[in-house]
């Protein structure tokens, strides 16, 4: 019993090990912009930016303090008149394509865009040949 109590006490004492900062969130981390059009723009952008601390979430979905600080950057930059593409560019210049959930054509990503087009062309080619052949066969039979 005593042992269990001591263990519990020590577990409680160890809680600060999981502590993050105790600072209040940045002004625009959880506060929306007053202008609904600007907020919509910011929100759309935040849903396509990756949270760096919690790598499978967007910054709009994450409660990590750093995601809050990133939302603050997005909102205050939108408020200052920057457009979403500029803000995305600013982040990509710092963290690479990784930070964006919206793939752009680049030296490493072009196959993503080229392969589907290629596949469609091949399929179209095969289909045309087959259909053309069948028509010829039908023509021969007639």
């Amino acid at each position, binding site marked *: 019993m005593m042992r269990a109590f001591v263990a519990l006490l020590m577990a409680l004492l160890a809680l600060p090990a999981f502590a993050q900062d105790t600072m209040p969130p940045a002004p625009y981390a959880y506060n929306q912009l007053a202008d609904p059009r600007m907020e919509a723009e910011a929100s759309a952008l935040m849903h396509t930016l990756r949270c760096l601390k919690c790598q499978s979430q967007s910054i709009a979905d994450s409660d990590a303090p*750093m995601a809050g600080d990133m939302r603050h950057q997005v909102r205050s930059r939108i408020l200052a008149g920057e457009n979403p593409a500029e803000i995305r560019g600013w982040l990509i210049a*710092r*963290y690479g394509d*990784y930070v964006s959930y919206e793939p752009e054509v680049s030296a490493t990503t072009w196959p993503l865009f080229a392969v589907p087009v290629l596949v469609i062309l091949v399929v179209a080619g095969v289909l045309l040949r087959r259909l053309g052949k069948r028509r010829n066969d039908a023509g021969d039979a007639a």
Partner: protein
Amino acid sequence: MRSRLYLWVPLALFAFFAGVAGYMLTQEKDQFVESAMIGQPLPDFTLEPAYPGLPGASKADFAGGKPRLLNIWASWCLPCIAEAPQLEALKAQGVEIVGIAIRDRPEDVANFLGRYGNPYTRIGGDPISEVQLAVGSSGVPETFVIDSKGVIRYQHIGDIREGDVSTLLAELEKAQ
């Protein structure tokens, strides 16, 4: 016979992709997001002192003379305790270390430095991770080598272990 072999192609392709996927599952995931700012000049910034004991930090503090370290840390960050002796060792080698304390309070900063030592010449307080984002850092601690012209030359992600001290010294040498 030739057409028969042809039938195996889809299965072979499937086996290949399954193999690749299986192999990737056994590989450790790289959690580090490297800064794309290496080779770029430090962005403009000015930060208030993180606590009353030392001046704050700005881009101007990196201009001229010699390469310096920019250490991004926080008093609430446990690995930052682990790297404290290594920062002391670097300081003992004559390295100037400018700190940026992320989302920190003056009393916590003072307390941390009192306990684990103070290797810094300046510490700027960054309560909304503004400068951290501007240099492309994605966590604490991270350490950047800034050359004498204020250009970011090298990034060390995570706490500085004993073996990393010589690497950082070499990078500082390279950044002369």
